[in-house]
């Protein structure tokens, strides 16, 4: 539960070691490089954008090649691929793999080239096929489609946009020009949309004949060929065949590269890393023979990094403790609380002046999640699943690992709450023993009878509601105490009294006073002795006075009073905050009752073998569904309680996240221990 001390690190070294240092820093992944704005008669900056662009281009090329390859070769992808994480390579393995640089790049280009050819061929084939389609109506015509002339006659080949037979076409032409006599025509093919016609007329009548035809919508064919249509179709089919063989050859060539997948992935990573290295080079300042760079490291890594750079690259390293708001933030927590760091970060990292809220939040986080999910069986499933995944997949990415650890602890908490409320897959134990064995379940604490109380029966809901409000008040007070600690750390002890103690007195006093009245006692099931009414009343009054006169910091007493009164109105906010914790009860009940619904549905099949099969199916499907939807609900609403109710009381956030310069790749992780 702390924000780590950071160190400013300055590295001075000879330019010949520049590349080595940049690579080593990337593998170490512990330093955040800052831009160094030193430019004068000695030092200059370098622009590496063109190198970055070329490396990025190569990375894209390899990614494309890999994608193409995977579309032709089915690669087995495990169901748990996302849990596996990146493959870890040592520095030596990494350098060994680099030898294949040019061959792999060549192969990648050839894969892309072949893929391009394949798509070109595909386009051509479609083109040919559509040509064939338009030639089909002319298949019966055994002369070439180009019209020819003899000494006295001219042939006309073309089509009409409607259906004609021989008689009706002659009639139509006679209608257009009744004097035309010397022509002959032959219908090649006809359907509803087009009639293809071969006609012969006297050359001297040609113009008139054409005019008569055009009146009926005659058009010349859109293509010409010096062979007959059927011959042309044969030729096109031949071409299609040739294109298909070409394509197949390209496909074979691509498939032949199927073992290359890993190399393609490796070099994609390599180029991504290179691009990142060159991007970092822009943060450096160079003199003719040396360079200087600056950044942040955590204190625990600083010394080790300095050692490494000195021993391997003769670099001079300066370390000094960093102060100020702009220093990036790294959190450090115990194994139990560390997993929820991600939740804090997803809100906003703490700024350097305040406490790291992770530790306190983690405890409430696990409690609330467990209370909302509250089923021993579900908790067991969740904890086991997460625990096994963490054990089996060692290379898992850190972020994912943290989340799984968080859900592991949430599962443990769920398990405990489940036992307290006597819920194990709902009321599965008693339903099973009643349905299949015909006896009431033996009273096993936690599984069939609650260790504490059953929240779904009798006064259970109100009891749990009261308990939820109590947890809520504790949670809110924890937030106020954290704010008080922040104030005290920065020397503002009075603020802690005015802003935090005052509210605790007011809210706590009011709660005590209410609990000693009739109204709430009937709900809570118990009543405090009436002396608490006085004690609570006085506490609340003191709190209210403190807020009214001191919570505003104006010099002008009148303004201060008005603003204080406005702040006091914030008590309604506290009321709604506390009521908001009723979701702990509601979601807890939702899980429990839906689980019972599924058990009852399953039990409807009755006893015996068929009943057992039906029950098992309903049980597995129903409870899986319930786990999914209610775990989501518990997660979302736990976050909400932390972000809105808890953080709203004290948390400022806005710290700068520590983003170490590291290996950010997709497939391989190159590690160097420092």
């Amino acid at each position: 539960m702390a924000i780590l001390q950071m160190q400013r690190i300055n590295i001075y070294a000879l330019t010949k070691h520049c590349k080595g240092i940049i690579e080593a820093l990337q593998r170490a992944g512990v330093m955040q490089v800052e831009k160094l704005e030193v430019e004068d008669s000695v030092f200059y900056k370098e622009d590496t954008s063109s190198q970055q662009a070329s490396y990025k281009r190569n990375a894209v090329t390899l990614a494309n090649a890999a994608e193409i390859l995977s579309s032709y070769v089915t690669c087995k992808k495990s169901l748990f691929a996302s849990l596996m994480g990146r493959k870890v390579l040592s520095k030596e393995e990494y350098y060994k793999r680099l030898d294949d640089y040019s061959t792999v790049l060549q192969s990648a280009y050839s894969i892309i080239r072949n893929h391009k050819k394949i798509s070109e061929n595909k386009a051509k084939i479609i083109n040919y096929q559509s040509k064939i389609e338009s030639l089909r109506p002319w298949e019966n015509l055994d002369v070439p489609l180009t019209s020819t002339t003899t000494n006295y006659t001219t042939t006309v080949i073309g089509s009409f946009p409607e259906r004609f037979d021989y008689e009706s076409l002659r009639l139509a032409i006679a209608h257009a020009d009744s004097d035309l006599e010397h022509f002959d025509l032959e219908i090649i093919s006809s359907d509803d949309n087009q009639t293809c016609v071969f006609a012969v007329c006297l050359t001297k009548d040609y113009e008139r004949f054409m005019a008569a035809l055009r009146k009926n919508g005659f058009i010349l064919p859109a293509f010409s060929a010096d062979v007959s249509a059927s011959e042309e179709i044969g030729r096109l089919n031949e071409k299609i065949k040739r294109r298909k063989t070409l394509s197949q050859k390209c496909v074979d060539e691509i498939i032949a590269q199927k073992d290359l997948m890993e190399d393609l992935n490796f070099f994609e990573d390599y180029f991504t890393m290179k691009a990142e290295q060159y991007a970092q080079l822009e943060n450096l300042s160079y003199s003719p023979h040396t360079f200087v760079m600056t950044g942040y490291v955590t204190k625990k890594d600083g010394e080790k990094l300095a050692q490494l750079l000195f021993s391997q690259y003769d670099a001079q390293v300066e370390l000094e403790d960093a102060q100020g708001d702009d220093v990036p933030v790294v959190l450090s927590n115990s194994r139990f609380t560390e997993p929820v760091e991600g939740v804090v970060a997803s809100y906003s990292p703490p700024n350097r002046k305040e406490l790291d809220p992770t530790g306190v939040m983690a405890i409430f986080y696990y409690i609330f999640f467990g209370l909302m999910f509250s089923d021993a069986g579900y908790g067991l499933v969740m904890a086991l699943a997460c625990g096994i995944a963490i054990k089996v997949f060692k290379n898992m990415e850190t972020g994912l690992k943290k989340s799984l650890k968080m859900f592991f602890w949430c599962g443990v908490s769920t398990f405990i709450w489940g036992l307290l409320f006597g819920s194990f897959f709902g009321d599965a134990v008693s339903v099973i023993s009643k349905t299949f064995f015909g006896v009431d379940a033996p009273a096993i604490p936690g599984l069939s009878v609650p260790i504490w109380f059953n929240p779904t029966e009798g006064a259970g809901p109100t009891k749990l509601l009261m308990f939820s409000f109590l947890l809520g008040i504790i949670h809110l007070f924890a937030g106020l105490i954290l704010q008080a600690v922040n104030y005290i750390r920065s020397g503002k002890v009075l603020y802690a009294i005015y802003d935090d103690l005052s509210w605790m007195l007011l809210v706590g006093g009011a709660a005590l006073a209410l609990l000693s009245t009739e109204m709430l006692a009937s709900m809570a099931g118990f009543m405090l002795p009436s002396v608490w009414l006085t004690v609570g009343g006085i506490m609340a009054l003191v709190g209210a006075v403190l807020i009214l006169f001191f919570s505003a910091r104006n010099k002008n007493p009148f303004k201060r009073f008005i603003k204080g009164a406005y702040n006091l109105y914030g008590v309604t906010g506290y009321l709604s905050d506390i009521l908001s914790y009723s979701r702990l009860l509601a979601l807890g009940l939702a899980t429990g009752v839906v689980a019972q619904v599924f058990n009852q549905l399953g039990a409807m099949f009755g006893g015996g073998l068929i009943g057992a099969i039906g029950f098992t199916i309903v049980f597995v499907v129903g409870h899986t569904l319930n786990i999914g939807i209610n775990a989501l609900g518990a997660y979302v609403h736990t976050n909400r309680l932390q972000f809105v109710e808890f953080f709203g009381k004290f948390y400022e956030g806005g710290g700068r996240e520590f983003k170490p310069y590291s290996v950010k790749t997709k497939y391989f992780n190159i590690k160097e221990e420092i």
Partner: protein
Amino acid sequence: MSGLFLAILGAAFATFMAGIGSSIGVGKAGVAAAGVLAEEPSLFSKVLILMLLPATQGIYGLLVAFLTLSAVGVIGEPVGTISVAKGALYLAACLPIAFSGLISAVHQGKCSVAGINTVSKKPDQMGKALIIPAMVETYAILALLISILAINGIKPLAI
């Protein structure tokens, strides 16, 4: 009109009104989610979670209906005849989740759509995109709570 009819009417209201709300909400979010998947299939798990957020109201409705049905003995152990007054009370107890569920699910669906858009552009902002629709759900939860407490309170009444 028997008391049993009124109670079952209440259970029906709780189920189908909250169910309608969830269908609309999840439906809207689903359309947006499918759109994002066309561009970024890797975001599937994230958009699925956002899409499922408005699904809870339907479940709350189911839950209240189930509690009502078991309170009047339609499922589980029989409890004897239900008076008209008692049936009407159950009907009233079902109304909070029926209405609140319907309307909050529709609006939560809209927030989910917006959240899916956020995630499609900035996948790392998932945490925040998740919290915004959850704000709307608060009111369904409050309604659920009142419905549950009311049903629980009506059960022992001797009317």
